[in-house]
């Protein structure tokens, strides 16, 4: 009977493709929009994932997320270093500064000041130049996206393409010269501003004069230290907030979820997509069953049980669901692949596959259930009506 069910499903190519397309659309909407949402949210803490070495981030108590900088006094660094269980503690400056470009315009940049000696927090991938060059005077490393887009030099020809900044070019940061000594590959941040890496002491000269300029203290725990206990110890000894990298990521994520309209906007589009997809797929599948109701009636009259018919409909739903889901997810993956070098945020974790799989499964089961009820209630005597 499975063969008959499959043949019934695929016999009318137009209807079959219609159902599969409906489910493909539902699956696409259910994965593509959340994938962009996930990508966007991941960008909110991308700086934290890029800085892999420290175990703990120490900051002012009022900091709510990664870009919410509430500077500390430099002396806090030494207090943190004094806490037992700390292997090392390094300073980090993080702030938004205006860079003056070659054409005289200004561009906000995310300036990162790294510990002068160790350069802890430096980008992991350098496309050009050397990290050690950061110790040369006035040197900075900029990210490739910034170099090719927002910081790029205007074309020498009118209307021509912008020319990317390269090693040896200069910028002006707060009226001070910055020589580019390297181009780095970093994950885009939420605001997608260019990222400029320099040393901590030089970053302080670029930054507007303030009494406090230390943004974070990056801490490495001694081997075997319980990170939770160490963060509590740092908090108790210094009165500052200390978070493990994961906790700081969660803090940032939660801030964006609570304080921006992003979850609501994406939630609405995903919900609408789900409803529209469910309506299209459910309606098409139900119509398919209705149009085949006479055939089900014939099978029922000939002695096919409701249970067998139920299995046939479930098989049909499972088949179109799997194909539609596969195609939808495939299209989303293709979309992500094609957009991998663009500014678009995109993240496609396995949880999203599971979520969309359950969503499409739910749609199919709902459509199948409604169809099954129709078939179970079907009077086989229908077959004698001309």
């Amino acid at each position, binding site marked *: 009977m499975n063969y008959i069910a499959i043949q019934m499903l695929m016999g009318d190519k137009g209807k079959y493709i219609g159902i599969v397309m409906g489910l493909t659309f539902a699956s696409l909407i259910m994965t593509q929009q959340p994938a962009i949402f996930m990508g966007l949210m991941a960008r909110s803490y991308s700086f934290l994932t890029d800085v892999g070495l420290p175990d703990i981030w120490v900051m002012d108590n009022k900091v709510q997320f990664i870009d919410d900088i509430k500077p500390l006094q430099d002396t806090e660094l030494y207090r943190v270093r004094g806490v037992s269980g700390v292997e090392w503690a390094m300073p980090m400056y993080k702030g938004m500064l205006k860079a003056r470009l070659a054409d005289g315009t200004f561009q906000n940049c995310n300036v990162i000041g790294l510990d002068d000696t160790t350069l802890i927090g430096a980008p992991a991938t350098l496309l050009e130049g050397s990290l050690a060059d950061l110790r040369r005077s006035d040197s900075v490393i900029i990210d490739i996206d910034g170099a090719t887009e927002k910081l790029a030099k205007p074309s020498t020809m009118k209307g021509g393409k912008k020319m990317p900044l390269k090693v040896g070019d200069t910028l002006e940061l707060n009226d001070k010269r910055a020589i580019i000594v390297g181009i780095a590959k970093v994950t885009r941040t939420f605001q997608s501003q260019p990222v400029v890496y320099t040393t901590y002491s030089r970053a302080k000269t670029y930054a507007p004069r303030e009494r406090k300029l230390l943004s974070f203290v990056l801490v490495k725990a001694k081997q075997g230290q319980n990170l939770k206990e160490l963060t509590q110890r740092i908090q108790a000894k210094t009165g500052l907030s200390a978070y493990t990298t994961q906790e700081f990521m969660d803090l940032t994520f939660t801030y964006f979820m609570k304080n921006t309209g992003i979850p609501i906007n994406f939630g609405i589009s995903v919900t609408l997509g789900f409803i529209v997809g469910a309506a299209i797929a459910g309606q098409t599948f139900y119509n398919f069953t209705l149009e085949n109701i006479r055939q089900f009636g*014939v099978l029922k009259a000939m*002695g096919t049980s409701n249970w067998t018919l139920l299995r046939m409909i479930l098989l049909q739903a499972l088949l179109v669901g799997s194909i539609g889901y596969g195609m939808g997810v495939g299209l989303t993956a293709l979309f992500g692949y094609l957009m991998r070098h663009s500014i678009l945020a995109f993240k496609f974790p396995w949880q999203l596959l599971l979520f969309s799989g359950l969503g499409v499964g739910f749609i199919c089961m709902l459509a199948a259930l409604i169809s099954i009820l129709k078939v179970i209630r079907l009077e086989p005597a229908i077959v004698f009506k001309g």
Partner: protein
Amino acid sequence: MNTAVRCENLTKIYDTGEQTVTALNGVNLNIKLGELMMLVGPSGCGKTTLISVIAGILDQSSGLCELFGENLLTMKSKEKLRFRAEKIGFVFQAFNLLPALNAAENVAVPLIINGTKRSLAIRKAIEILERVGLGERWNSYPSQLSGGQQQRVAIARALVHSPNLIVCDEPTSALDHRSGHNVMNLLKEVAIDKNRALVIVTHDARIFEFADRIAEMDDGHIIDVR
């Protein structure tokens, strides 16, 4: 026993909530094995309701309907399905072939319902298609066959599992005179058997000549059997 169908004081009332319609009103009828019985009468007289009850796809409101000595009303749902699948073959006015299946696959459906493996069912289906003169068209889909050929496939489907009762609902009404005659000749030739009865509902007077007996119905009653 040579009685295939025994109906006594059979009544069927449809209750739509707003009104009740008495489709069968005390029908008494016996159909013998080896017999071709035609049920005739005007539209709405209860012919289709009667064969639906006889075929076990509709329950009567009261009265008795026995098939080969078995009362379908007292059977459990599962037993009734099995009984129907094994003992009854159907030929419909609109052929009711599954359009997505080819002729052999359509004919094989009753065997598959009865649990026969698909490959064996298809082999048997092709054999029976040869008997109805469509052996070479076994791979054709219903849309590729003429009305007469489709009805032959439907007849093959009704016969393939060797049922003891074949119920035919207006088997010739969708066909022209010649095709209708061919179909009836075929039914006479391949379907009539000493262990099988045929009930044909029709108002096509041109095929009355093929009947062994004709039961005339009107207003839910059998008014004459000749």
